[in-house]
């Protein structure tokens, strides 16, 4: 669906994007992660035909963004990171504007606008002026706009930035819903944990180069990092350490007796967690909760982007 071939962008002597190679299969949800200034926006803008690559090319469904930008534009739905909306129109008029820009026939527009408004949960705001919307609603409106012409590829540049936790969750639910429609989605963020649970693959970019890519599992394997499992235990806490120390994968066990919790670092796959838990339960340790710590993904991100993994 999307192929980047040595995609490069230079601004004078600064290389913002450096020979990026990537392949996305149809239906894939790709999380594009990197710190500020890593080159995410620059890459996405090149894919959206707003910037011309200095070198290399990108193919959307086999169509080159360099040679045939007009054709690419109807294949993508692009949501910019710092987007503006026309404040002086009503919500439906805003969508009608873009429907008309994408040459959707007039008689189809009304039902189409109804559909995307329903999907983004903005139906009650149909006749409100855009300036009356909250930031989260504007963000969803912008997302609704990208869906109007039913593009097979969505390019979303930090769709959840500046949202409160609740709106963030709503946005995530919305994206999960989109995943079900079978679209290929490229979504950028600074926060790995935000994307980890619904992206099929992630890529970590730093200083214009892709430092790691693949599923979260694969990256953890590739980088030889450990994951941290947080256990909540109601009985048998004193036995945990002795049991787990015997397992080869386990690197460290920290028991917090007061809180009744225990943090286990281990270098294995997610599937191995089940074995660990079975061992503990067999030993009479009552584990009531087990979760992978989110801060761990942050740690992974920090270590990858600090250049520890090359």
């Amino acid at each position: 669906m999307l192929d980047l071939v040595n995609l490069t962008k230079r601004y004078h002597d600064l290389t913002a994007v450096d020979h990026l190679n990537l392949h996305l299969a149809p239906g894939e949800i790709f999380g594009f992660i990197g710190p500020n200034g890593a080159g995410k926006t620059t890459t996405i803008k090149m894919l959206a035909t707003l910037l011309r690559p200095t070198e290399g090319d990108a193919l959307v469904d086999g169509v080159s963004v360099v040679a045939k930008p007009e054709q690419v534009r109807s294949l993508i739905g692009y949501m910019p990171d710092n987007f503006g909306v026309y404040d002086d129109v009503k919500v439906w008029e805003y969508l009608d504007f873009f429907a008309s820009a994408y040459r959707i026939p007039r008689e189809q527009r009304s039902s189409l606008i109804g559909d995307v408004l329903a999907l983004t949960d903005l139906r009650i705001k149909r006749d409100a002026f855009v300036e009356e919307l909250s930031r989260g609603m504007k963000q969803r409106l912008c997302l609704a706009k990208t869906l109007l012409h039913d593009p097979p590829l969505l390019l979303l540049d930090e769709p959840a930035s500046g949202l409160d936790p609740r709106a963030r969750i709503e946005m995530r639910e919305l994206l999960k819903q989109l995943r079900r429609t079978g679209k290929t989605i490229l979504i950028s963020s600074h926060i790995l944990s935000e994307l980890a649970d619904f992206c099929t693959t992630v890529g970590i970019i730093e200083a214009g180069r892709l430092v790691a890519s693949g599923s979260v599992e694969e990256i953890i394997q590739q980088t030889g990092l450990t994951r941290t499992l947080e256990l909540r235990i109601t009985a048998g806490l004193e036995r945990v350490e002795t049991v787990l120390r015997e397992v080869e994968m386990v690197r460290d066990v920290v028991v917090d007796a007061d809180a009744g919790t225990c943090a286990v670092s281990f270098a294995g796959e997610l599937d191995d967690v089940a074995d660990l838990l079975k061992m503990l339960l067999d030993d009479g340790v009552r584990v009531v909760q087990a979760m992978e710590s989110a801060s761990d993904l942050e740690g992974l991100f920090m270590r990858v982007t600090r250049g520890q993994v090359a």
Partner: protein
Amino acid sequence: MWAVDNPIIVRELRVRMRGNRALWMQAAYVGVLSVVLLLGYWQASQRPEAVADGQLGQLMFAWLSVAQGLLLCLMVPALAAGAISAEYEQQTLDNLFASSMSTSRLFWGKLVASSLFVGQLLTTGLPLMALCYLLGGVSMTQLLGVYAVQVSACLVLSAIGLGCSLHCRNTILATTASYVTVIGYVIFTSAVAAGTAALGAVSPLVASSADDGGIRLVAVAVGFTLAIAFLTLDFSVCRARLLRDGLVSWRPRLWLAAVALGLVTWSHHDSASDAPGLAVLLGILLALLLVSGDDGTEPRRRVLWWQFWRHAPESAPLFVALATMGMLLAGTDVVKLDDHPLAFGACTLAVLMVAAVTRAFHTAAGRVWPARFMAVTAVCVGTLLISASTVAQELMSPWEGFNKEAAWAFSLAQMLLYAWISVVMLYLMWRRRVFAPR
């Protein structure tokens, strides 16, 4: 239709009349023109012999057309210079450029959108111009000529503003740049007009000299001006293409356009027919009427149907124009209305055009309903009756200098126009919503 299908134009139609800014601009425009008209009247009335010669209308007309030209040079660049740069500043440009809208469609939309309001201002000035016509000494050719040149000059000014807006990513800079360019353009065209008799009307400021050469001169001047307008626009489109699509194609187009421009200028002595004047006027009107429509998305206010002014605050400039006209007529007894059925008809036509244009904008803003249609129809039917009766009267007992053919043509045009308005009205009543998707 082209206008309805271009999102940028539709947005302009919807948005322009929301809020009071446009209303104040329009009122200020008519106000300034009215003051100029009064000044012209005062100056002419110092010389009673001029009034006796029938030069009153001519003098006032000259004042008005120069004032209108100046106002346009001041307002149009400011209106157009924000077209691209403001979108850049508000960060809406990326969404627009990433959409599959073609660059030429985008720029054409921007050009028309920034000219539409100017067109409305021009029609707001029409009743005042028509007044000069009523007072005598001004020919229909001259009136139409000035308007044709000024309308095409507006396109040039808009295109200049648009080009600057594309080049400067900052509206203040773009506005400054377009004023500088416009000053250059006015000096250039005025020099051309002074130097070449055949292009006497090419400058928006001296457009009123069109009467010396008649339709032919107007046609040449308009052709020349339009060619410059499209040359300027095409240049911007090519530059934007280069930025957006990576195409380098402007050089051959530029040369082609330059050659075309040269040909237009060269072949000015080709004869032009006198007929198309009214046809053009009608065409513009029809286009404006077609883009109007009924959209009942906002709750109707509790206003009685005959309370025009409460229905449509933006038709206030129309009333200002009418009032000025009335005052002037009350102070002059140079002519009696009955003596000039044609001139009277022209006045009503002008007033009607203002109504039609304001209506188009008003409807697009999403708050109009049949009551105002009824009001417009009442005006149409009333003026039709009056002009029909005056024409009939003159046919029975013709006075000297009465132009029978023109009277017939005019009445016919008026009738066609009203018939058209009725058709559009019925259609809109039937469909209820033109802009709102069903």
